[in-house]
């Protein structure tokens, strides 16, 4: 007999597949944009500016080679001096969330804490995607309406 000591929480936090009555509930990892631009610490802000907004994003996630999140460039950091290094320009150690968090919970949290974007990571810090508040609110609202229609 084997004991998976880290348990269901670890499985969910890693974005593992699940079954059950709540399996279809939208989660942060389902809504997060996996195509969010990323950059490394050694790049210059100008290079990142050139590829971030044209891709439709106003944020870029700073990652290492293993895609572990190191920092975040939000809109105001992206507007900085193009010559500055990412390491100096970024907001280090942003709050991250796990993929299994229900989207309604995420939407409330992002509104309450005025977060435009939240990186979604596995439990070992690897980037899953960037959850945008507008996306979270849109999906949570749709979910809320669907639940209302069902009652």
């Amino acid at each position: 007999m084997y004991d998976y000591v880290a348990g269901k929480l670890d499985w969910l936090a890693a974005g593992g597949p699940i079954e059950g009555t709540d399996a279809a509930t939208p989660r942060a990892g389902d809504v997060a944009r996996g195509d969010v631009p990323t950059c490394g610490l050694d790049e210059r802000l100008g290079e990142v500016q050139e590829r971030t907004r044209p891709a439709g994003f106003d944020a870029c996630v700073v990652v290492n080679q293993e895609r572990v999140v190191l920092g975040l460039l939000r809109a105001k950091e992206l507007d900085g001096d193009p010559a500055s290094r990412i390491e100096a320009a970024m907001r280090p150690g942003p709050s991250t969330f796990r993929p299994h968090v229900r989207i309604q919970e995420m939407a409330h949290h992002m509104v309450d804490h005025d977060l435009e974007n939240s990186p979604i990571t596995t439990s070992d810090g690897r980037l899953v995607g960037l959850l945008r508040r507008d996306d979270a609110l849109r999906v949570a609202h749709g979910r809320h309406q669907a639940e209302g229609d069902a009652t």
Partner: protein
Amino acid sequence: MPREIDREGVRRLVDQGAQLVEVLPAHEYEEEHLPGAVNLPLRRLEEQAADVLDRTRAVVVYCWDSA
């Protein structure tokens, strides 16, 4: 004593045919569980394991977390 394994160990054993057993209460299992897992809440584990599980295959048990 059960041998402790991590997430990758679970995947590997399941690929090899291991049985997954969630020992949390039934309502928690019904909401969400690992693919293919069966539910044997802790208080029923001993009395029902022989009826539910295949003795010839490895068994992986899990609960919510390590706490």
